């Protein structure tokens, strides 16, 4: 990246203190800080034992349901095949 300097008699227009003050927002800063620290200190789901067990149960239940549905489907097609003379 290249730097270029433009020097003129007036330079850029300097904002006054009042103009700068319009951009000041301590409440937003504190809000962003709290959000950033919460995100930094948030425990991942897998590191919390209770959440981890719940997560495992949900996954196991999903696998079980998938297995049952699959089994039903295969037995259904076998029955149909047996009925065909």
């Amino acid at each position, binding site marked *: *990246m290249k*730097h270029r*300097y*433009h*020097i*003129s008699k007036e330079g850029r227009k300097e904002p006054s203190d009042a103009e700068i003050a319009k951009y000041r927002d*301590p409440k937003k800063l504190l809000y962003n800080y709290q959000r950033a620290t919460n995100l930094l200190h948030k425990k991942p789901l897998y590191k919390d034992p209770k959440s981890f067990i719940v997560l495992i149960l949900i996954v196991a239940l999903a696998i079980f349901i998938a297995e049952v549905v699959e089994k039903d489907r295969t037995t259904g097609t076998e029955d149909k095949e047996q009925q065909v003379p």
Partner: protein
Amino acid sequence: MDPKDEATSIRSAQGDPRCFALLYEHYFAEVFRFILRRAGDRDMTADLTQQTFLKAMLALPKYEFRGTPFRAWLYRIALNELRMHWRKRKEVVIDMSFAEVRGLSEELGTDMEDERIQQLAHAMGRLPSGKARLIELRFMDGLSFVEMGVVLEIGEDAAKMRTHRVLALLRSMMTTRG
């Protein structure tokens, strides 16, 4: 801000982030102007200033007060934010006034004629960014060598020596160009 008051404010903010508001109020305009000199655009400057203070707040627990002005530490963070902002840019244009380069011009022993000033602008543009930064911090921002050291993470003596070397280089560039 008095160094003693500054140290007290920093300690309070390290204990309770809500106390950072005092430092924010005090240094906001200075940091805003520091960034504006380089970013040019006011809305972009406002975003980068807010980001600088957020980073400062997050890093404050690790900050050690060693008697150097707090603003220099804020400028270091601001410069890092600017570097990240500049990453995708091919060229950065920095607008300066005659008043801002008067000190530099005196140091180089050049007069303030328009032609010589344009030569100076051209010579500064040819400097590697690290060297140009020394000139900016010293003459555009008016920092002391101690503060420059804090911003660039080097010692005071190193800041002084490097600045004198860059000045010598600029002087020779100006002479070569006539």
